[in-house]
C-alpha cells in the first residue's frame, strides 16, 4: 500500500504561456502592448492566425482562423509574420527558468510544460506559493504571463491552467478532480475534438460530468480504445507521469506552398532544402538514419506518406535527398494533382556506422563534406553556403539566420 500511495500522491503543475507568439512580439516591441495583434502572416496572404492577442480575441479572432477573415473582423489589428527562432529562444529560456524549480519537466510544446512538483511543499511553503514564484520569475525574466494549473494528475492540471487564463493560477484539491471537471463542457476535455463533441452532444452529453457517468462499455463500443481514455479523463483518473523528453526517434520537416504547385524545380529545390535541414539535425544529434519518409499533401488535401529503408545507415543530405527524390518521382508519376505540402522525415535512428570500401572513398568524402558545410552554417548562417539545387529558393523566400522563411514564418523551423 505504501507503494500505491506513493504513486497516487503526485502533484503536477501545468504551466502554459498566455498568447505565446504575440506575447513574445509584445515583449520585444512594447508599442504593441495592449493592442490587437495577430501572428501568422500578412492579412492579404493565404494562411491562418497562429496566435491572437487577448485584445484581438475580443473581436472574435482565434488561432486557426483564416487571415482574411481575421482582417475583416478586426482591420485595426497589427499583423505580424513572426519568426520561429524568436519563439524557440523564448521557449528555451522559459524551460530553463522552470528547470530551476524542478528537474522533472515535460515540455509538450514551445509554450506548455508539465512539471512534477511532488514533495516541493516544504521548500516553498506550499505548491501554490511555488507556482506564484514561477509566474513571477517568468514575468521578470521573459516579460511573459504564464497560467498555471495544479492538480494530482495531468488532465486536471491542464484544464485548470486553461480555465485560469490569462495570467491565472488555479489549484484543484486532491479528491476534487471529479467535481471540478463535472460542470465543464466536454470540449474542454483533452481528446475531445470536433467530431467526438458532435457525437456526444448528439447523445445529449454536453458536460464532462455527464460523460463521466456514461457506461464504459458504451463509450468503448462507440470510440474504441479512446473510449476508455475518455472515461478515465472524465472521471479525473490519469496516471500518466511527467516524462522528460528522450532522444529524438525521428526527425522531419515539411512546408506548405504559397500556391499549390506542379513546378518540378520548385518542388525539388524545396525538397532538397528540407532534406538538408533534416540532415543537419540528424548530424547534430550524432545519429544516422535507416529509413527515409516522403510526405505529400495534394490540392484536395489527400495526404500520402511513402517510406524506404536504406541498405546502409546514413546521415548525409545526399542520401536523404536522393532516397526521398526516388519516392517523390514515383509518387508524382502516379498523381497528377498539384502539391500543397511537401515534407521529408527520417526514422529508425541508429548510432553512426559506415561500411568501409576498398576502392571507393566517396561515402567518406561525402560525410566530411557534410561536416564542413555544417560548420560553415553554424558560424555564418544556413544560407551562407548552399547547393545548386536550392539556389532558386533564394529568389522566392526571404532568408533569415536560420534558413529560409517559408509560408508560415512563425512555424518555420
Amino acid at each position: 500500500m505504501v507503494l500505491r500511495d506513493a504513486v497516487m500522491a503526485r502533484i503536477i503543475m501545468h504551466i502554459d504561456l498566455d498568447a505565446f507568439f504575440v506575447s513574445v512580439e509584445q515583449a520585444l516591441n512594447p508599442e504593441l502592448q495592449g493592442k490587437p495583434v495577430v501572428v501568422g502572416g500578412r492579412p492579404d496572404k493565404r494562411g491562418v492566425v497562429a496566435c491572437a492577442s487577448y485584445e484581438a480575441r475580443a473581436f472574435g479572432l482565434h488561432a486557426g482562423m483564416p487571415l482574411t477573415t481575421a482582417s475583416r473582423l478586426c482591420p485595426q489589428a497589427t499583423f505580424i509574420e513572426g519568426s520561429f527562432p524568436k519563439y524557440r529562444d523564448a521557449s528555451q529560456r522559459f524551460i530553463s527558468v522552470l528547470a530551476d524549480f524542478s528537474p522533472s519537466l515535460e515540455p509538450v510544446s514551445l509554450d506548455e510544460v508539465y512539471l512534477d512538483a511532488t514533495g516541493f511543499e516544504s521548500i516553498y511553503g506550499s505548491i501554490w506559493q511555488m507556482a506564484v514564484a514561477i509566474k513571477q520569475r517568468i514575468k521578470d525574466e521573459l516579460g511573459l504571463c504564464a497560467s498555471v494549473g495544479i492538480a494530482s494528475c495531468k488532465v486536471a492540471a491542464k484544464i485548470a491552467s486553461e480555465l485560469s487564463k490569462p495570467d491565472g493560477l488555479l489549484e484543484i484539491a486532491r479528491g476534487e478532480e471529479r467535481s471540478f471537471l463535472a460542470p465543464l463542457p466536454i470540449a474542454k476535455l483533452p481528446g475531445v475534438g470536433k467530431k467526438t463533441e458532435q457525437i456526444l452532444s448528439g447523445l445529449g452529453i454536453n458536460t464532462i460530468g455527464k460523460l463521466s457517468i456514461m457506461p464504459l462499455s458504451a463509450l468503448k463500443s462507440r470510440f474504441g480504445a479512446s473510449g476508455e481514455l475518455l472515461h478515465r479523463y472524465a472521471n479525473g483518473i490519469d496516471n500518466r507521469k511527467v516524462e522528460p523528453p528522450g532522444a529524438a526517434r525521428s526527425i522531419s520537416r515539411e512546408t506548405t506552398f504559397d500556391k499549390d504547385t506542379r513546378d518540378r524545380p520548385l518542388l525539388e529545390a524545396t525538397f532538397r532544402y528540407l532534406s538538408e535541414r533534416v540532415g543537419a539535425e540528424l548530424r547534430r544529434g550524432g545519429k544516422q538514419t535507416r529509413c527515409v519518409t516522403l510526405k505529400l499533401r495534394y490540392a484536395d488535401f489527400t495526404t500520402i506518406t511513402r517510406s524506404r529503408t536504406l541498405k546502409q545507415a546514413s546521415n548525409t543530405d545526399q542520401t536523404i535527398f536522393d532516397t526521398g527524390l526516388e519516392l517523390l518521382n514515383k509518387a508524382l508519376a502516379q498523381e497528377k494533382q498539384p502539391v500543397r505540402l511537401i515534407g521529408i522525415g527520417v526514422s529508425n535512428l541508429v548510432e553512426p556506422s559506415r561500411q568501409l570500401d576498398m576502392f571507393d572513398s566517396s561515402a567518406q568524402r561525402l560525410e566530411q563534406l557534410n561536416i564542413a558545410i555544417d560548420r560553415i552554417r553554424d558560424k555564418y548562417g544556413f544560407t551562407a553556403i548552399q547547393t545548386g539545387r536550392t539556389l532558386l529558393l533564394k529568389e522566392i523566400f526571404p532568408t533569415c539566420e536560420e534558413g529560409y522563411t517559408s509560408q508560415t514564418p512563425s512555424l518555420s523551423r
Partner: protein
Amino acid sequence: MQISCLQENLSRGLGVVGRITTSRTTLPITTHVLISSDQSRLKLAATNLEIAISCWIGAQIEQEGAIAVPAGLLTDFVNSLPGERIDISVASGTMELKCARSEARISGQKADEFPPIPEIGEGITTRVDARPLRTAITQVVFAAATDDSRPVLTGGYAQFSGDKLTLAAADGFRLAVHNLTLAAPVAEEVSIIIPARSLRELDRLLKDQEDPVELTIDPQRKQILFRLKNVEIVSQLIQGTFPNYNQLIPQSYTTRAVVNVEEFLRATRSASIFARDGSGIVRLFMTRSAVEPSRITISARAEEVGDNLGEIEAVIEGDEAKIAFNSKYLMDVFSVMEDEQVVLEITNPSSPGVFRPMGDGDWIQVIMPMFVQW
C-alpha cells in the same frame, strides 16, 4: 527432321541448357531452345546473349533438321513423360513429340532466327581439373558485386600465367583470391574478367564432370569457351580493367588469431540475429590473459531490442584488438571455407581483416571493417 532419343537423355540435356533462358528478355527468341541434329547426335542450345550453353545427347537421326521451341514448355512436357523412347519430327514450323501414349505439338521458330552460338576455334588454350576449379569458384564468386555500378566488379578476375591460375573477385567490401594449378600451361600470360553468372553456371555443370575442363580464350579476349564432356559453355567476357587488388592486401599485422571456422561461424550467426536492425554490425574483441586461454568475443546490439555476446577460444599473437564487420560478410566467408581452422590477421579497426589458410590451401579472403562508435 525426324529423330528418336530417350526421355531421360532429353530431360537431362534440357536441364543443362534450359536454366539460362529467362522470360524477361528484349529478344523473345532467347526464351527458346535450339534443337538440331549434329551428325549422329542431337544438339540442344540456349543463350541469354551473355552465356550460351550447348549440350549433345545420343539420338537416332532418321532425317536431319533443326527448330527452336519455347524452352520452358518443352522442358516441362518432357519431364512429365515416362522414361521411354521419344520420337520427334518437325514439319512446317511445328515440333511433334510422341512418347508411349502421349503426343504433343509445339509451335516453334525457324532455326536460322536463333542467335548464332559463338564458335571459338583458336586462341589461348589450357586445361584445369574440375574439382579444384569448383572449389576456387565457390570460394571466390560470392564476393563479386551484385549491383552494376562498377561492371568490372560483377565478374571473377582470372589471371593465367604459366601453369598458374589466379581467380579473384571483389565488391569493394570484401575480396576473395584463390590460386590453383593448371593441368596444361598457357602459351602466354592473359587476364580476363568472367561474369559471375557464367562461373556459377560452370560450377553447376562441373558437378557431374570427372575429366579436366578445356578452356579457350578467343584472340580478341572477348569470349571464353569451356569444353566439358558433351557440354560447351561460351561466355562473353567483361571488358575493362580489374583493380589492382594486391596492393589492398595488408602485408603485415599487429594481431593474429587462429580460430575454429565452425565455432566462429556459429558465434557470428548468433550475433547476426541481433545485428539485423543495426546495419549488420558485429564487434570482435580479441583478448589475451595470462591465466585463461585467449579468446575472441563477438557481440552485437540492436537499439531498444537487446544485445548478444558470444565467446570462442582462439590462439592470439600480438596486441589485443577490436574490429567491427558486417555479419553477412563474415558468414559468407566462413560458409565457403573447407578448412577446419583459419588465421585472422588485423592491424587496426579501420584496416581490412585478412583470413588466410592454416593448412595447405592457396587462398586469401579480405573483409573491409565497419567504422563504428566504440
